[in-house]
């Protein structure tokens, strides 16, 4: 869902860049309160893992592919603000090193996948925590699905505001494709959470996630 260069007009990407910069600045401030120095390697490994998983496109129906976004995975492990930092680092590295996502669209891509995605995932997960004490796979799948749908929705809105594609066509198209990709997101996220927990349970230590 990385928006390439040229798809957004300055009237759209400039404000998105501003909003994203301010949000990431706020996240940097807030995440400092929840983590201490010994948590840093965990955050780094999670970011590396999400970057890696984003390279693996799996086939979705009809000659289309999708890959993990990872926002729900990062939120499940560390809570909202550290997840925003992790996802922002991934999206920036993809744009700078691999030309995946345009530099002009960087603010929008960060907003969709690194800010809105984690925000929605965190909202769904905290609703889940309130309703049931155990963090069940159903809530992780829901958080994953909604985070992908939110990013797809915002992406479609940005494209139509830029005049790249009409809203009444691009919005339903983006939501339909990502409704399927979101299911994969849910499955891969649950598998990744279980895998990481089996290798290193402290990756999901509540000391951080309770703080968000």
């Amino acid at each position: 869902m990385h928006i390439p260069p040229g798809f957004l007009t300055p009237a759209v990407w400039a404000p998105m860049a501003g909003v994203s910069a301010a949000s990431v600045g706020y996240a940097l401030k807030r995440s400092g309160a929840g983590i201490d120095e010994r948590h840093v390697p965990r955050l780094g490994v999670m970011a590396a893992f999400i970057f890696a998983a984003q390279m693996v496109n799996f086939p979705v129906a009809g000659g289309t592919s999708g890959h993990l976004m990872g926002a729900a995975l990062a939120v499940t492990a560390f809570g909202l603000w550290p997840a925003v930092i992790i996802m922002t680092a991934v999206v920036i590295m993809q744009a700078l090193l691999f030309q995946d996502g345009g530099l002009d669209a960087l603010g929008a891509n960060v907003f969709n996948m690194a800010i809105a995605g984690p925000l929605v995932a965190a909202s769904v997960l905290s609703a889940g925590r309130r309703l049931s004490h155990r963090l069940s796979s159903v809530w992780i799948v829901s958080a994953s699905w909604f985070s992908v749908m939110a990013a797809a929705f915002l992406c479609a809105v940005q494209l139509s505001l830029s005049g790249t594609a009409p809203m009444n066509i691009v919005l339903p198209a983006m939501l339909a494709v990502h409704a399927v990709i979101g299911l994969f997101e849910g499955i891969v996220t649950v598998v990744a959470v279980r895998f990481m927990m089996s290798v290193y349970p402290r990756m999901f230590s509540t000391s951080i996630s309770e703080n968000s």
Partner: protein
Amino acid sequence: MNRYLIILFIAALLIAGVLSWFASSSPDGLERIAEDLGFAGKAGGSAFSLMPDYTVPGVKGFWSNALAGIIGVCATFGVIYVVGKVITHRRNRM
């Protein structure tokens, strides 16, 4: 670094370096819609190009993708490591 965390880091290296070679090359959701709706052509070129499409220039095939993946994993880890140290250090001094 904890050795279980190192296992996860190695898993990330393997996913980016090896598993990604077998990834689907079909267009992703946005690319597909851009093609179907006819606005894919609006995509412009990049201002600069380091490792486009997760390939290292001058290296071919599997190793180009593997090297790009390994560089990406290490760079992403490095950025978060530095940013994380700065955030926690700054807080501890206050």
